[in-house]
């Protein structure tokens, strides 16, 4: 998946595309694209006319032959653009497919740990399999027992191994990845053929590509425009007859093809495929094109504070004891509560206790201690040593715990907590049994440059909401420092879901990312839900995108890619329609000058002859498709700014440019073909 973006001129991409573009000329396939299908039909007509001209040895056979050639070229260039866009995905798909070799699975039978070897595709959902070091995991599943380091580079391109363990938020494993150490038992959650890897292959290959809502709407518009031009062209013979002349059918065909929006019609599917590929290159998999489009429409971004806005690890910076408690006493309890806590915060408390008070780490085993891990519901962790319960955690959670044990809350505690929170830190209250000891000041470090990113988002009209488990005061301080628009403090999964619902009721589209099982409802509710690859199966199923790098900051890039996709479509549509003006000025005088010679004055480009004018228009029309393939694949350049600014710029470049460019282009083609004597 780490396939680097390849150059467009890479022969490894171009050669197969040349071939598959030919196959795509099949009318049964092409009918999905009404504009190009129409071109193909009239190209066939042109061939028939050419054959007739040849048969009767008409002097215009050279002209009709060239027209027929360029009409076919127009269709071919369109299918080629689609083929080359798919080709880039195919290269990625092939790399993936190699990892899906015929693995053998060790399916557990009975309780005793016995297993039988069966082929991976024969596994059923719910089967339990044993995976040992060096084995490829045979299918998507969930670790139900054990911890292992897993090499997921086949999927993510990231070579550093990751930890997968039962329970918690890192339980999902993907078929085709390799276990490096330890043995795990995995429950298979996806049948062969519908696994994550299979879906990825299908997605990047574009095999499952259904038209997105917006693409359908645009196709209708283009088909409607084509119909209008059918009318405009089909009535010309009658007009010409009134005026006492005849317009050759092959000329009508040429006019029709230049007028209908072939440029956007030819490049439309390439743009869509390229948009998906751009995401894939960012190591994000969209489960549907619809999700990519929705990303462009997002109004509200819900961002987890930790890891996105602040550096993942908060550092313990200070112990602030209550009156009557020494700092050392507080540090001692905090250290005990943190010894088994593998979170960065827990580790930083141990480090601070040693640095500030010289407290060394102790072995937990001889203390007969039970570690109480952090949970999103309890919002505290700690340790039970015999009957002594040491806890550290969110202020309200620990205070509730102290109260339930019958303890009193000293008034000073509130003041300490509040001061820490106001300074933007996270207050962690430490208690021993029913006695509150004081506060550990955890310092949050806001990522460099994130403030500017949020400013960009605001300019694009996107509101950012920081989601954090912190209390409102801490959250407000960090929100102010990071420059987010709003925050949701003391967030529970339910609060997150409620927030999304509220925003959506106001007509807004919401994007969020998440990894835990408890994020699943919110991920499913959000319009764009990006699940982390490291997350649980439930989260991955609920989201409509998966981030293989598990980097929540990427949500911002995803929005940009969605917008770029829509902008590219709009820009090329505008360009395509604006082109028509020049094409009319090329063909209409050429067509009617024989009927009314003064109409030659409309030949503002000064094209050499009626025949060269018509040929130039049709050649320009074909070549512009090829010329715009790189733009279609790369997307129009995009810098985050307000809609008004974007529109002004794009209207100028693609609207005005689309009006002017063909006048120059057609004139140049005319000069070229007349100088080599083609017309």
């Amino acid at each position, binding site marked *: 998946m780490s396939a680097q973006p390849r150059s467009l001129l890479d022969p490894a991409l171009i050669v197969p595309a040349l071939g598959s573009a030919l196959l795509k000329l099949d009318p049964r396939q092409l009918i999905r694209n009404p504009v190009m299908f129409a071109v193909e039909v009239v190209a066939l007509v042109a061939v028939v006319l050419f054959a007739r001209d040849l048969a009767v040895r008409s002097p215009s056979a050279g002209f009709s032959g060239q027209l027929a050639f360029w009409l076919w070229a127009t269709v071919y260039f369109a299918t080629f653009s689609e083929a080359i866009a798919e080709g880039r995905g195919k290269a990625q798909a092939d790399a993936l497919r190699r990892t899906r070799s015929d693995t053998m699975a060790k399916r557990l039978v009975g309780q005793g740990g016995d297993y039988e070897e069966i082929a991976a595709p024969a596994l059923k959902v719910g089967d339990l399999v044993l995976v040992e070091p060096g084995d490829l995991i045979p299918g998507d599943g969930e670790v139900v027992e054990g911890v292992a380091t897993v090499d997921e580079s086949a999927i993510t391109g990231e070579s550093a191994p990751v930890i997968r363990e039962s329970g918690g938020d890192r339980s999902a494993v993907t078929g085709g990845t390799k276990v490096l150490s330890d043995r795990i038992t995995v429950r298979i959650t996806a049948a062969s053929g519908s696994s994550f890897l299979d879906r990825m292959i299908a997605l990047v290959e574009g095999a499952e590509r259904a038209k997105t*809502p917006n693409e359908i*709407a645009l196709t209708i518009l283009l088909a409607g425009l084509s119909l*209008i031009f059918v009318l405009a062209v089909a009535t010309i013979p*009658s007009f010409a007859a009134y*005026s006492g002349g005849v317009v050759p059918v092959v000329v009508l065909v040429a006019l029709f093809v230049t007028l209908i929006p072939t440029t956007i019609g030819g490049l439309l599917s390439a743009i869509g495929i390229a948009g998906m590929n751009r995401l894939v290159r960012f190591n994000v998999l969209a489960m549907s094109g619809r999700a990519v489009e929705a990303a462009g429409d997002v109004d509200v971004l819900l961002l987890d504070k930790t890891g996105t806005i602040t550096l993942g690890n908060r550092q313990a910076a200070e112990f602030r004891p209550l009156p009557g408690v020494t700092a050392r006493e507080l540090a001692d309890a905090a250290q005990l509560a943190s010894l088994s806590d593998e979170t960065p915060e827990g580790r930083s408390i141990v480090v601070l206790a040693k640095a500030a008070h010289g407290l060394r780490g102790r072995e937990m085993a001889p203390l007969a201690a039970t570690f109480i891990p952090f949970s999103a519901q309890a919002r505290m962790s700690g340790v039970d040593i015999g009957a002594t319960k040491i806890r550290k955690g969110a202020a309200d959670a620990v205070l509730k715990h102290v109260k339930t044990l019958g303890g009193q809350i000293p008034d000073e505690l509130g003041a300490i907590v509040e001061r820490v929170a106001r300074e933007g830190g996270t207050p962690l209250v430490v208690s021993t049994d029913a006695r509150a000891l004081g506060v550990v000041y955890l310092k949050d470090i806001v990522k460099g440059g994130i403030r500017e990113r949020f400013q960009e988002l605001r300019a694009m009209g996107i509101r950012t909401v920081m989601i954090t488990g912190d209390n409102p005061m801490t959250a407000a301080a960090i929100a102010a420092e990071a420059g987010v628009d709003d925050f949701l403090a003391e967030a529970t999964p339910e609060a997150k879901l409620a927030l999304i619902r509220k925003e959506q009721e106001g007509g807004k589209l919401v994007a969020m990312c998440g990894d835990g099982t408890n994020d699943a409802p919110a991920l499913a509710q959000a319009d764009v839900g990006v699940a982390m690859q490291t997350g649980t199966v439930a989260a991955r199923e609920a989201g409509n995108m998966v981030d293989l790098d598990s980097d929540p900051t990427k949500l911002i890039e995803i929005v940009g890619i969605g917008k770029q996709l829509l902008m590219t479509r*709009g820009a090329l549509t505008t360009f395509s329609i604006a082109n028509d*003006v020049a094409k*009319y000025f090329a063909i209409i005088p050429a067509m*009617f000058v024989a009927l*009314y010679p003064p109409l030659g004055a409309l030949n503002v480009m000064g094209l050499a002859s009626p025949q060269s004018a018509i040929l130039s228009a049709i050649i320009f029309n074909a070549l512009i498709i090829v010329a715009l393939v790189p733009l279609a694949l790369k997307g129009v350049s995009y810098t985050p700014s307000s809609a008004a600014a974007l529109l002004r710029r794009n209207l100028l470049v693609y609207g005005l440019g689309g009006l002017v460019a063909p006048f120059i282009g057609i004139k140049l083609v005319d000069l070229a073909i007349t100088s080599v004597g083609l017309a």
Partner: protein
Amino acid sequence: MTINGWMQIAVFCAIVLALVRPLGGFLFRLYAGARTFLHPVLAPVERGFYRLAGVRPDAEQSWASYALAMLAFHVAGFLAVYGLLRLQGVLPLNPQGFAGVTPDLALNTAISFITNTDWQSYGGEATLSYGSQMWALTVQNFLSAATGMALAVALIRGFARRSAKGIGNFWTDLTRSVLYVLLPACIVFALIYVALGVPQTLQPYLTAKTLEGADQTIALGPVASQLAIKMLGTNGGGFFNANSAHPFENPSALSNLIQMVSIFAIGAALTNVFGRMVGDERQGWAILGAMGALFLAGVGLVYWAEAGANPIHAAIGLDPSAGNMEGKEVRFGIALSALFAVVTTAASCGAVNAMHDSFSAIGGLIPMVNMQLGEVIVGGVGAGLYGILLFAVVAVFVAGLMVGRTPEYVGKKIEGREVKLTMLALLCSPAATLLALAVAIVVPAGLAGLQESGPHGFSEALYATTSAAANNGSAFAGLTANSPFWNVTLAIGMMIGRFALIVPMLAVAGSLAAKSKVPPSAGTFPTHGPLFVGLLVGVVLIMGGLTYFPALTLGPVADAFATAAGDTR
């Protein structure tokens, strides 16, 4: 062109602009069901009508029932007019003793008036009795105009409402349009016209002795009452054949100004109703801005073309400084004839105060283009607004993508269904115009109606099919359209141009009304500024104009080049 001429044009524009907000505010309150200053008098009458008809005024209709009610109403209207015209000979108020109207002419006229086209294949004072003018035509003038207003309000509701099933009630909208707007205003206007010298009588035609001692029949009738609604309802069907060029139908510069203002008044005010209903008046001004830009460009071109002399006339020694006065009334002159021609074709009215056939080629081209753009430059009452809103949907869809979001207009997402229906609506008028033209200019029955041959004859036919499909009703006078072929062809064109557009348009309204509203943000495509105005103008010109480019080239454009080259064909 003279300073005086431009000042007359400026005065007209200023009056129309000044009326937009007060009239818009009144209409907004009326259609929202709020009380207006007319309610104390008219509300009981309104309630009486509902009780008589058994209509519940606040019962919401879905777009489909709204459309069905509208269609049923028009079928009834058609049968009534057709019957009244056919039976004219035996009905009262027929002092001249005119016979019943022929079937094809009655068909054409009935469709013409129910579709707000007012194409006149008949000569008013030579064919129709006072009774027919009053109960067949004038009644439809009110009803077709009120229908246009109702439809526009229904579409606006589609944009304004959120997650709604209904788009209003056709019967209520229709009744209110007639009762509170058209009827009171027309009573006032009719009295003003009478004061300015327009006849209003049921007496038979007068016979006068001329200075030479010859007998001259002077046609009279209830002119003022029909004139008022003909203008305000953008109907355009003249009492007399010469329409508003006739001294009894448009006696002075003042009556001319009032007529032009009343053509634009409601159409322009409806843009403000749109703005108010979607909660941002700037949206309405932007629409009016796009209309205004196209309008001023048209006026400038026609005025310039008509103020210039015909090179062929100049070549034979005629004074070029008078401009092209052929077919124009001396009491209006070049500027007011040019302005009237642009106003009447921009607005789907079709009344004329000069003969467009006698305009220079370019001067005749602009009125045609105005109609071909879909009559969206202010447009027919209601029809202009829903026409340009459809173009706005296309403009927003094409360009809105360029800001990187699913296109939305005044908070409504424009998706596949709206695009499909909008394209369908926008397709019907070009189809009707071009297909009818393609047939008419090759079959002998069609060619027989043309006065000229060559490009000018082509223009006459193009003007007629355009005018019918656009529901304008004005004519390039050279065409003799009262033949079975032209009567039937144009009747079909008028039907398609009206109803084939309305039904998908109402479906768009229904589809939009059902959507929720996206709140605006910095990422929203702004549709209230000059950028959008320019874009909308561009889309109207490209979508509307390019379709007709070949036909226009062979008609007025070829005509213009030929005239410039001194070719008198």
